[in-house]
């Protein structure tokens, strides 16, 4: 199953590229010109996203470096103990919706410290792998089309991050303990 899945993952992109090109040729689309035109559109999209990313990254980096994240962890400590969540995993759970690179660094650190095959290592990998960075997705997707009012999207994203964290803990405990 796993081998089949990784094989599929490996072949998906080459197949997709070949398929689009051959189908485009069949429909007499000027493939090269179309590609360049689309890529130019991509450039515009990235320029639109750039200021949003800078704004978010500054705020998140400040929050991490200033010690505010550590403070938040301390405040939450009694609650976390009550829930029987391993304390080492909490920074990862908190940072996961805010910063993809930040949480990846924490997950890697946990795996390096406790070993990839330890319960904590597996939990960190599952947690990191099972959700995407909510704030990043919102920033990029809304920024690209100029949405100012995100309605309830942020609330849905953050609550389902919490659901993902809880699900990761339950699933990992059930499978690997």
């Amino acid at each position: 199953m796993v081998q089949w899945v990784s094989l599929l993952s490996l072949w998906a992109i080459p197949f997709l590229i070949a398929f689009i090109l051959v189908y485009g040729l069949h429909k007499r689309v000027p493939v090269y010109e179309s590609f360049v035109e689309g890529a130019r559109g991509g450039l515009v999209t990235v320029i639109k996203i750039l200021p949003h990313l800078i704004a978010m990254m500054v705020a998140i980096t400040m929050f991490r470096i200033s010690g505010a994240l550590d403070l938040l962890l301390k405040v939450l400590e009694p609650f976390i103990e009550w829930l029987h969540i391993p304390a080492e995993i909490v920074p990862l759970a908190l940072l996961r919706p805010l910063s993809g690179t930040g949480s990846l660094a924490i997950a890697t650190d946990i795996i390096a410290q406790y070993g990839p095959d330890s319960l904590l290592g597996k939990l960190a990998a599952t947690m990191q792998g099972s959700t995407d960075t909510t704030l990043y997705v919102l920033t990029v997707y809304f920024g690209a089309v100029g949405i100012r009012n995100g309605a309830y999207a942020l609330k849905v994203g953050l609550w389902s991050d919490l659901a993902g964290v809880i699900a990761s803990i339950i699933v990992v405990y059930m499978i690997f303990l």
Partner: protein
Amino acid sequence: MLNVIWLGLILISIIVAAWNGRIEVINQAAFEGAKTGVTVAFGLLSVIAFWMGMMRIAEKAGLMELFAKALAPIVRRLFPDIPDGHPALGYILSNMSANLLGLGNAATPMGLKAMEELQKLNPDKQTASPAMCTLLAINTASITLIPTTMIAIRMQYGSANPVEIVGSTLLASFAATIFAILLDRWYRHRTKRRSR
């Protein structure tokens, strides 16, 4: 909401840094954070330009409409507001399949194309439409079949069986996605009822 979070993160950081007597880290963080933003954007530039180029070919060949029509029954329930055979459906499906396969690089450009199409259908260009919120809910929770990055890291640290976490990740992300879709539904109905 994003306004509040952004302002809150920065003000709290400055207060905490001042309290700890390390106000100088704020300068460093501002500079580093901005740099990270630029690095991430330029990392995105290459993949987005490439995939949007490929997608333009697919679009001109009529592949998006074809894709949308063939798989419409599946997404119809998730996105009731999008008209039949609209190209947005095709992009949403491409985005979901790329996420599922762990091709995050390809998923973002397709998701952004879907957002562009949804924006064309959106009556209020500054406020997110219900369909946009559903697309974001699916993307922030993102069902993952192959967590490529974590498998690579486990490999790097000498795991006996790096792909062992595939099952647990799939289950956890499946649960989170179901939760996200249900919550999105709930909020959507609530907003509709309120505006009546």
